[in-house]
Each structure stands twice: as C-alpha cells, then as structure tokens.
C-alpha cells in the first residue's frame, strides 16, 4: 500500500506542508488553523477550477446533503449518524471548511421509506447539486438510492456495517463489510472460549442472511458445527420457541444478528428463560451502545459484541470525539459503531477534496483510494481501492451501564473484501 501513501503525499502538494500536517492531525490543530486568513485558499483555488460540473459550490461555500430518516421506525437508529455528521461538519467549518469553503448542509428526511430515500436523493443531486451526500442506514435504503447516485453521478458516504456484495464508484462505505466484522470475531471466540458449536439467529433480511452465510462457511471450514440457524421477521417479538431450541441444542456460542426493536424482546426473554450470558457465550454483530439503551444493560451484560468501534475506546482521538459529541448533543447521548462511522464521512470527503484539489465527483471518486484519516476516533483508517475502509475488528463485552469493555482488537487493519471468494 506504499503507493497509496505516495499518492496522498503528492496530492496534498498544493497545500503548505505544515498546514497539511495540521489538517491530518484533525481537531488537535484547531486553534492554529483558525489563525489563517479566511478565504486564503478560496482565492488560490477559484471556483471555476474546483468545480467544473456545476455543483453547488461558490467562492465561500459548498453545499452537501444529509439524508437519513428523522421520522419513522428507523429514526431511532439514524439520529446518531445525523448528529455525528453534523458534528464533523461543524468542526470542519471551524477549521476553515473544505478548500477554503464553508460547508452548508441541506438535510432531507428519508422517513424510513425507501422510495422517499430515492426521491430525496434525486432532489439533493438534481435540484440542490450537492457535492456530497452523507446518509442512508439500512441496506434497503442504500439499494434504493444507488441507481440514483450512479445515474446523476453523486457521491454517497454510507456509514452502516453491511453485507458487502456491492462496490460502486459513487459510494464510500465507511462502515465495515461483512467479512471485516465477522471473521476475526469468530476466530477470537474460538480461541478464547474453545467454541465448537454455534447457533445462528437473525432478523430476516439480506444483511443477517449474508452475514450468517459467511459465518457458517467460516465455522464449517474450521471443522466446527452450526447446530441451528433461525430467522425472524423485522419487528418480531416472540423468541420463546427459538430460546427453547437453544436450550436443547446447547451451543457453545449463540451468534446473533437480530436488529432493531426485536433485540429488546430477544434479550429480555433470554434472561427470563434463565440463560445467563455470563455462562452462555453470546456474540452479536448487531448490538451497539444505541441498541443497549433500549435493551437495558442488565438484560445483556456479559454478551460480546463484534464491532470496529466502541464508545469506551481509550485513545486521544476518541476522548476528544466523545467530549465534543456530548458537548454538542447532550451528556446523556451514547455513541455506537455506526455513529462513529458517520463521523468519518465528512472528514474523509474533506481530505479527498483536498487531495483532488476539486469537488468534482469524478475526481473525488478517483482520489478516494488511499485517503488516510489519522484523526478517526476508532484510530487510523484508510480508504481501499474498492471504496471500503481498512479498519480493525474489536470485541467488546457488554456492561450493565450500557457500555462495553473492549476485550480484544486485531493487531492490524483488516482488508475490506466485499466479494469474498469462498464465502459466496
């Protein structure tokens, strides 16, 4: 990947090197950058040069879109992403914006409704001519807007961990694809707990099914066994029959990808049925700090979650991020994996625009590979040629207070592989 680094160096050539380093250092450099004369960059980079495709860019501003559900069933999940994206944009503006231009946000509500997402995406691209869109959460909403972004050549920064099997010039996936989230976690639980048998349970849609398909292949390749695989409709709240099956098959590990409100019922009923998660190993790829609010820490304490980010991560970037997030959105707010991935979007876009010295979508898409963000709360991340991120996998253990203790993290960044050979 040394060539990526060289690219990054070369493309940042237009900006004086001390400034560049400060940009890369992120918020740490905030006060120093504030001293630079306003608009100095804008004069150096006339709008005609950085915007050749009639995007909404002026000498002083650049418009971007935020497209999430603020109403409907998904609002509870997507609010964190909106907050993180707004925080990142506010911080970038405080630093002087992108290529000397302040970011202006146009927020649209996808209303948990996939055609509305498509309609709003079209509006943002066709009417507002935004330079980038940060948004979408569910796979269904992403699938609905993807043809729109490809048709009108827009740029989408998509924050959620997802099933993979997709790659687009017009999307940067800031969450993990399935193999990044699953494989290292399974290896860890095998090594740590000596697990031999797994029970897979998930909500019935593409992400849990694909994730479990990958998990099953990995488990069986290692000579371990899957003793059960069950799916439930979204919003399902009766898990007693599957809990009985779990009790009968006595798996070493329950591997859960139940999403949304179903989680609350699932963990409460497990507890009521006498399954103690301190004794029965459960690994989930769908519970973050956000879901813990609804489930209640006491119902899920002891379970392991496999993510790339936890709010309790100990590093200077994250401490600053958590403090800034709570200052902006209230001390009670919690930050889950997707929220952090949402925060990466605006920063990656800013760094890419500065590398490309342009807002043009084609140039942003071309310049994205190799972009590094050292200020990420999860630690250093880098964009792969396939537009996914190199990220670490981490395992956290749920505590009663709704936070996780990080018990494991991979030594290296894991390569994103949205089309994993041998797992399809």
């Amino acid at each position, binding site marked *: 990947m040394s060539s990526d680094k060289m690219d990054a160096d070369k493309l940042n050539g237009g900006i004086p090197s001390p400034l560049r380093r400060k940009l890369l250092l992120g918020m740490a450099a905030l006060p120093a950058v504030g001293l630079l004369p306003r608009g100095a960059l804008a004069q150096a980079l006339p709008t005609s040069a950085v915007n050749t495709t009639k995007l909404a860019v002026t000498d002083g501003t650049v418009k971007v879109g935020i497209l999430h559900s*603020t109403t409907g069933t998904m609002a509870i999940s997507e609010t964190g992403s909106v907050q993180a994206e707004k925080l990142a944009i506010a911080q970038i503006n405080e630093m002087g914006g992108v290529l000397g231009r302040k970011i202006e946000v146009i927020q649209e509500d996808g209303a948990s409704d*996939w055609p509305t997402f498509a*309609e709003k995406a079209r509006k943002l691209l066709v009417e507002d001519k935004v330079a980038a869109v940060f948004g979408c959460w569910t*796979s269904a909403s992403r*699938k609905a807007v*993807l043809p729109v972004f490809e048709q009108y050549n827009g740029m989408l920064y998509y924050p959620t961990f997802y099933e993979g099997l997709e790659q687009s010039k017009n999307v940067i996936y800031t969450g993990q694809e399935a193999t990044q989230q699953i494989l290292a976690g399974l290896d860890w639980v095998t090594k740590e707990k000596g697990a031999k048998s797994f029970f897979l349970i998930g909500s019935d849609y593409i992400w849990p099914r*694909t994730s479990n398909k990958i998990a099953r292949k990995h488990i069986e390749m290692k000579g371990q066994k899957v003793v059960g695989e069950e799916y439930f409709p979204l919003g399902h709240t009766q898990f007693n029959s599957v809990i009985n099956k779990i009790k009968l098959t006595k798996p070493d590990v329950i591997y859960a990808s139940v999403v949304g409100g179903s989680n609350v019922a699932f963990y409460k009923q497990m507890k009521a049925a006498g399954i103690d998660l301190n004794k029965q190993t459960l690994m989930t790829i769908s519970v973050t700090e956000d879901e813990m609010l609804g489930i209640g820490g006491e119902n899920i304490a002891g379970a392991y979650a496999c993510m790339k980010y936890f709010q309790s991560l100990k590093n200077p970037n994250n401490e600053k991020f958590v403090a800034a997030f709570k200052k902006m959105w209230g001390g009670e707010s919690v930050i889950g994996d997707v929220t952090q991935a949402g925060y990466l979007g605006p920063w990656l876009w800013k760094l890419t625009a500065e590398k490309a010295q342009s807002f043009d979508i084609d140039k942003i898409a071309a310049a994205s590979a190799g972009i590094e963000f050292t200020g990420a709360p999860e630690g250093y991340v880098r964009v792969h040629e396939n537009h996914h991120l190199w990220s670490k996998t981490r395992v956290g253990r749920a505590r009663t207070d709704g936070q996780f203790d990080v018990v494991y993290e991979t030594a290296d960044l894991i390569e994103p592989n949205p089309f994993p050979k041998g797992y399809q």
Partner: protein
Amino acid sequence: MTRTPQTSFLGRIDGDIAGILLLAALLIVILPLGLDIFRLNMVGKYLTYAFVALGLVLCWGSAGILSLGQGIFFGIGGYCMAMFLKLEASSPEATKIQSTPGIPDFMDWNQLKELPWFWEPFHSLTFATVAVVAVPALLAFIVGLAMFKRRVGGVYFAIITQAFAAILTILIVGQQGYTGGINGITDLRTLKGWDIRTDEAKLVLYFVNAALLIGCILLCLYVRRSKLGRILVALRDKEDRVRFSGYDVASFKIFVFCFAAALSAVGGAMFTLQVGFMSPSFVGIVPSIEMVIYCAVGGRLSLLGAVYGTLLVNWAKTMLSESFPELWLFAMGALFIGVVMVFPNGLAGLYQQFIAPKLRRLTTRRTDAPVAGAPIIPPHTAAD
C-alpha cells in the same frame, strides 16, 4: 351520486366532463410546462397512487366496501412489472460478476442457482403486462368470492383485507431469494432496450401515466353512470333491499372489488416504471391505509376529488418534509385530523358546499339559486 341533473346547466353530466377536461389540461399542459422534469417525475409518482384512489372511490365511496388492503394489488401490479424489468436488467453480460450470471442479483446473493419457474414467463413483456392486471384481479376475485358469498362485510371485511396485506408482506420479506425480500426489486434499467432512467423517458412515462389515468377516470365514470353503478350505490345504502329485489349482491361486490384491484395494479406498474424499483413497503398495512387517506382527503364520493386529494396529500408530504424534516409528520397528522373532524367529505365535499353553488349562481345569473348543490351525505356517514 344522487344529485338531480336539472339543477343548472352546469349540471352533473357537463360538470363531470368539464372537470375531467380541466384535470386533463392541468396534467397534460399546465404541470409539464410549469415544472422541471424532477418535480414532474414526482407528480407522476403521486399520480400512480391516484389509480388506487379511483378504485377506492368506486369500491368504498360507491359500493361501501372499505378495503384497507389496496396496497396488495398496487404491490402485485408493481412486482409483475418489476420482474419483467429485472430480468431484462439481468442479462448474462450485465451480471457476469455473480457466481450464477443471468439471474437477478438478489437471487445470486441468496445462493439460488437458477431462475425459479414462476419467473420464467416474465421474460415476455406481453405476459407481464397481462399479469399486471390479471393476477391482482384474480386474487381479488378469490378473496371476494370467499368473503362476499359468505356475506362478510363492513368492518370485518376491512380487517381481513388488512390481514391479507400483512400476509403478503411477510411472504415477500420471508422469501427473499425469490422476491428480493425487504430490499425489493431494485436497479431496474431498461424496457425493451429503452432506458427508463433518462429525463426523456421520465417525460414520456409521465404522459403515458397521465393519459392512462384520464382513461381510467372515464372508465370509472362509465361504470358509475351505468345501471351497475346505481345498483352499487343501492347496495351501499340498503343492501337487503337490493338482495330482496332479486339481485345477486355478492357478484356486484366481487366485480367492483376486482375492478378496484385492477386499477390499483395499473398504478403499481406505472409506479415501478417511473420510480425504478418495487419493494414490500408499498404492499403492507401502512401504505394501504395511506391510500385510503388520499381518497378520504379528496372526497370518497368524487372521482376527481380522489385524484386531487392524492396530489395534494403527496405534494404536502414532499414539501413539508423538505422544509421541516423533523416536524413534517405532525403537520401531516394535523391535516388528517382536520379532514376527519371538519370536512368528512373531503375536498370534493368542500367544493360542492361552497364553490359549486357560487359558480352556479354566476353561470345561471339566478338570484334564487337552489341549495341542491349541497353534498348528499350517505346515511351511514353520520356514524363514521
């Protein structure tokens, strides 16, 4: 409706045709001139719901059969079209990245190795077009036969249609290898090689949609004015009396239910063509009830009212959600409460109560204008 035709020279027959001409002018001339292609495409999308609202005017307004499951037929119509378009978009060349090229992408993700048998006929556009109308009509026929022959009606029928909507959603979501699951059938590209995603195609589809809608309004008008239409009103108001007069009530009900289903399905197919995908979120209970609301806002007794109601509610939804992304649902809620509390006969009711008498006075220049223009409220409305 029951208004006597001789109240004025802007009487019922001229009035209906004049109203349709006005709507046609609005849809085919004024809106395309006044809106850019993006907004026009949105109007086109709203108009596809107007097909459902038309069906509801006949089924609910005329015949008194409240169906809370019109999304089923809208969805099936849309899915039939989407299946054809998806197969065309899944040529072996376009899908060579998959482990089984030549089948739709979501089947490949679900480890299907070959096209399921019921997908095969959808290679043919003729078959798909026929299926758009025939499959929902057949389903409505079966449901109608089972319900109306047993004299299930009123609120029980409404609840059962809701159950069917829920069943179909669960079926589609659960069988994602065959249906695309919750994501639906996405990324539709061409119709017989004609790219439906371009602005020109959207313009053409808009006009096709508008013309179809006008055609369907005329068809509905024809049904309502026929003897059949009067029997429908009669069985809404006094079902037993119709039965004792020797009519087979169930057959009439089954017919109007199938007719409404077919109309909804046409809307669904046009929706798929214009929006470029279909998903179970248009099949379930919530969209089905929303469609009833469109009809209620416009006025369930008026064909044109239902079209305007659909346009207005969707337009308000879009505008409010663009301007107040965090508050718009409250505004919509207020609008719906307003409709139910203040003007139960919808926009058409308001028009007939306040505007039509004035118009009539203007046109007839009579000082003793009759009050016959006031809306005739069917007997059971009072209890709603």
